[in-house]
């Protein structure tokens, strides 16, 4: 909301710098979004008359201007294009002050200039809205002091950000009241004369009930002259960014800004049958607004009608047909209190917001119409003349602010601080009526409908006391100690993240919203995942069931900057629908692509880690869990059909890892092979507790013995089959060579296994070790027909 400092002074005698005022506003909960200096802020600027204009000899846009001044003729250099011979203009000479600048002699392109012609901006008279040099009225005498002409002082425009619970602050008066309480200063008695008027007003029917309108006041004023507003009124509106139109329109705006109560003036000649009906619109009813746009209304929207047609969209927009013209003679003036919910819904639905609707939708003072009617009538009579009727005030159900009963101790308990009774009384008495017995009973003034219980009272006292004064020294706490573990999903995520970071993976964060394509590319249908009813944009309609699409997009993004060697992961929620209800669970996913550091290093021989690298990652990740890996019989569509394994926990497949299908790569515009994994952590949670310490196993003190065994075996035999056949062997088994190709019988491959036998009790003898190896080979012979190489 915009606030003009000088206008504020109509209501309260303050002499604060704008900085001091900003501090007060901030502490009261009003943020100063902008502060502009305006108003005359200069000295020694006098009117002068332009006698002659010549082109500057060294410039194609500057002029040499000869002037008649109070001290005789003078020549200055000027760049403005709106000057003409005969104009009266403001001249600042050497020594004159413009804001913080004191003028010095200047030489402009070789011509000396002993002064300058001033624009409105340079004089701080922005509200005149004149571009270029400020051209004064011809009646202004040469030598007249411009400062006298423009009232003389710097002024300030504050742009305040208000909280939605304080509609009463949306006016100059409201801010003055706030400062009056804060500074304990009385409000100035700015009264508009009450006019009783003669003759009946229009008949008013609130057929909408309280859901539409809680109070409606109206009066007729006849024989008005809708002249242009006087300069002071125009200046004030301009300062708030409102363009003056005509006195009647300007006065309703002026009163709204000053008192916070929107008003509406109808041209009486357009109201048929002399009746006002406030009703809800009919379905499909048409309304042509002041803005020449025809809108179709619905039954939630409130309209002000005469006997036949809507004249005005209540509290939001005037109608084309009832609008005030320069020729308007008789008016009907409305001051009403419309239901905030109704105005809010209509404004939202039509996408139509006005200064008026913004005030109504927050809930206004039920007594505001009376004050505003009085002020507007007084101003209209002063400026436009006219004969007012009586006021018709329809106020079916009286609205009272509630009585709040409390003790000072209760307030002190909420705030955690002692409150001076005297100060509390002063604050509360300025906000309403206060009776003090055993308990305090407070009833707020009608414009503070937000003060409903003792917590509201506590907030008011804290605000006016200043939060900075609130118990600055407390250091003790009586907080009860209690302890709980982090949720398992958090701890398990932390464990996985740390492991992956250690293995060279970078953590990514992606948003949970995704597209139909991304849902379907990873084996889900859109019916299986929650869908947004009002998506922000195309491609953000669904909640992601899998994290892989996002990670592939991250790879693609990095690929654009030639970053092709990447390991990325994400741990986040994935979504599904279970019997019509949304379900959420955490997943871990990762992708690997390009060369490993070892492959990239200039001294390293070429080696491909590929799938087995990924398998190593999975093995490290799940090192502390019980699980099995198994070649996927039916790989998911997005995976390579042959290079994909299942991760199995408690007989359930919790996820997959492997090489991505070439078509998946194509869909995400990826230029090189990607290895990926994703699994759900739910089934792992029961095997994990951050609180549980792992028990150490004893390690043998004696050296171990090892033997290598090379053998030839059918090429179809899987390594896992060999391991399971040898599972009772008391040795660690490592594959140290695998050979397929030349010098081997057709359909065979050769493996070299290293067996490491460790001894717990005593050093193993050669005989014992050889015995083991013989057994191993026998097993291989019997199970797979292995032959020694």
């Amino acid at each position, binding site marked *: 909301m915009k606030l003009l400092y000088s206008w504020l002074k109509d209501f309260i005698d303050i002499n604060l710098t704008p900085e001091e005022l900003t501090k007060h506003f901030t502490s009261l*909960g009003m943020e100063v979004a902008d502060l502009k200096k305006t108003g005359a802020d200069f000295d020694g600027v006098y009117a002068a008359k332009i006698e002659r204009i010549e082109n500057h000899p060294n410039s194609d846009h500057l002029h040499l201007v000869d002037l008649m001044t109070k001290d005789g003729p003078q020549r200055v250099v000027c760049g403005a294009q709106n000057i003409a011979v005969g104009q009266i203009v403001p001249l600042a000479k050497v020594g004159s002050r413009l804001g913080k600048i004191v003028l010095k002699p200047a030489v402009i392109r070789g011509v000396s200039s002993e002064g300058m012609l001033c624009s409105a901006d340079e004089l701080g008279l922005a509200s005149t809205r004149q571009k270029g040099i400020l051209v004064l009225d011809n009646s202004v005498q040469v030598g007249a002091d411009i400062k006298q002409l423009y009232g003389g002082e710097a002024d300030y425009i504050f742009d305040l950000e208000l909280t939605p*619970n304080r509609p009463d602050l949306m006016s100059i008066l409201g801010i003055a009241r706030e400062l009056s309480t804060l500074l304990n200063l009385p409000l100035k008695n700015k009264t508009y004369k009450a006019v009783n008027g003669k003759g009946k007003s229009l008949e008013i029917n609130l057929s909408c009930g309280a859901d539409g309108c809680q109070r409606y006041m109206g009066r007729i004023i006849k024989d008005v002259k809708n002249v242009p507003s006087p300069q002071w009124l125009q200046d004030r509106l301009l300062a708030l960014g409102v363009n003056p139109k005509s006195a009647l329109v300007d006065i309703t705006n002026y009163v709204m800004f000053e008192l916070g109560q929107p008003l509406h003036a109808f041209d009486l000649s357009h109201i048929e049958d002399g009746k006002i009906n406030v009703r809800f619109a009919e379905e499909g009813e048409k309304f042509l607004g002041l803005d020449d746009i025809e809108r179709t209304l619905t039954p939630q929207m409130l309209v002000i009608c005469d006997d036949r047609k809507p004249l005005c969209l209540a509290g939001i927009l005037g109608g084309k047909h009832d609008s005030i013209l320069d020729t308007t003679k008789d008016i009907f003036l409305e001051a009403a209190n419309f239901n905030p919910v109704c105005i809010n819904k209509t404004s939202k639905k039509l996408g139509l917001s006005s200064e008026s609707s913004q005030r109504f939708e927050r809930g206004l003072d039920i007594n505001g119409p009376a004050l505003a009617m009085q002020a507007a009538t007084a101003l209209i009579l002063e400026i436009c003349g006219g004969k007012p009727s009586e006021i018709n005030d329809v106020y079916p159900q009286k609205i009272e602010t509630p009585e709040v009963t409390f003790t000072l101790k209760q307030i002190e308990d909420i705030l955690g601080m002692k409150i001076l009774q005297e100060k509390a009384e002063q604050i509360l008495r300025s906000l309403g009526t206060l009776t003090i017995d055993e308990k305090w009973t407070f009833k707020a003034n009608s414009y503070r409908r937000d003060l409903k219980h003792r917590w509201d009272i506590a907030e008011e006292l*804290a605000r006016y006391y200043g939060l900075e004064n609130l118990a600055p020294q407390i250091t003790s706490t*009586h907080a009860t100690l209690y302890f709980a573990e982090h949720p398992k999903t958090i701890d398990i995520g932390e464990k996985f993240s740390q492991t992956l970071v250690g293995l060279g993976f970078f953590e990514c964060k992606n948003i949970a919203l995704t597209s139909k394509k991304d849902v379907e590319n990873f084996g889900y249908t859109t019916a299986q995942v929650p869908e*947004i009813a009002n998506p922000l944009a195309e491609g953000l309609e669904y909640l992601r069931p899998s994290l892989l699409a996002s990670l592939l997009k991250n790879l693609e993004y990095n690929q654009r900057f030639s*970053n092709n060697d990447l390991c990325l992961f994400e741990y986040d929620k994935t979504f599904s629908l279970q019997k019509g209800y949304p379900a959420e669970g955490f997943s871990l996913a990762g992708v690997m692509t390009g060369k490993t550091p070892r492959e990239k290093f200039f001294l390293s021989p070429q080696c491909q880690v590929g799938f087995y690298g990924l398998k190593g990652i999975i093995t490290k990740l799940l090192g502390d869990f019980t699980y099995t890996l198994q070649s996927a019989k039916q790989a998911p569509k997005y995976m390579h059909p042959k290079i994909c394994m299942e991760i199995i926990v408690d007989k359930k497949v919790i996820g997959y890892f492997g090489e991505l299908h070439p078509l998946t790569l194509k869909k995400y515009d990826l230029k090189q092979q990607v290895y990926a994994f994703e699994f759900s952590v739910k089934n792992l949670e029961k095997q994990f507790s951050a609180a549980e310490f792992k028990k150490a196993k004893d390690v043998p003190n004696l050296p171990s013995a090892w033997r290598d065994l090379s053998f030839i075996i059918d090429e179809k035999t899987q390594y896992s089959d060999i391991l399971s056949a040898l599972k009772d062997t008391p040795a660690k088994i490592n594959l140290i060579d695998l050979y397929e190709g030349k010098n081997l019988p057709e359909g065979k491959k050769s493996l070299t296994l290293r067996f490491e036998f460790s001894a717990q009790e005593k050093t193993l003898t050669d005989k014992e070790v050889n015995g083991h190896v013989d057994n191993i080979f026998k097993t291989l012979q019997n199970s797979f027909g292995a032959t020694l190489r």
Partner: protein
Amino acid sequence: MLYNIYMTINELLTKLSEIETSINSKLQSCQNTKELQDLQISALGRKGALTELLKNLKDLSLEDKKLFGPKSNALKQSLTTAFEAKLAELSLKEINENLNKTKIDLTLPAFPFNQGKRHPLAIAQKRMTDILSRLGFVWAEGPLIEDELHNFDALNIPKNHPARDMQDTFFIKNTTRKDFVLRTHTSGVQIRTMQKQKPPIRIMAPGRVFRKDAIDATHYPVFNQIEGLYVDKNVSLADLKRDLTVFMRGLFGQKAEVRFRSSFFPFTEPSVEVDVKCVFCEGKDANCPVCRGSGWKEMLGAGVVHPNVLKNCGIDPEVYSGYAFGMGVERLAMFSLNIKDIRAFYENDIRILEQF
């Protein structure tokens, strides 16, 4: 060299001292370990000079044995020690010579070990949860898809509140019930916790929230918040002020200046906003891009839990009271990690990620 086995004791003693002198002088002139080892063998080896001489011992009289035995043993000892010392000296010299022959360009690139990094948002969030943990807040989680009861109603947010609008909140379409939304704040976790747990309650609830904001440098439809809630007997605004001052100083340093301003939220009363003195310009730069010249940076919203919220969760506001606060993680991360565009968090550009 063979010695006459019938040498007299005097001859033997003379010989012993000759050996001592000769070996010691040869030992000093040894230039490398090879020479030294040869010399050691010729002196102390099985056929060495001293060994040979000692063979005479057995033919000596008991008296002579007592004289010659200890002397020759002492010499053996001292020579052994001298050889060891010389060996150490020469080996060190040789090792150093060898090392000095090394030819290498140390300025070639380092080996690029695998090391990943956590995401900057995870880093910022972890810092916040670590501090809150130390202040006794325990971690609570809640669903991202919330019903209107937990996201709005129970939080005293009126039915016609603008935040409940389709313009600001994402609604879910294809569920059986029609009141599911993507949570617009983490405050629903407060409600869920208070519904199932009696005070004392002291929780933090970090997590993602969703608002229908168009994407620009400071807005993203998804962002992260950390919620805090403390409910017990006699919890006051002063407790909130103290605890949040400690929290802010934890984040920004013990000297950080913290400012509390009155504000409004439907779920707290009184409500405050908490600012921190701009850590970039300390309030001294009128053109500071971080605080835009105001000298302060808004950090979080907070307040005393509204009695209606407590009532809605079955907690008696006449017995218990509490405070709650909510803070944006992105805001802190942008501020502290110097990230200028919120979109950078979700592009996952490795050139940004690897910096942290």
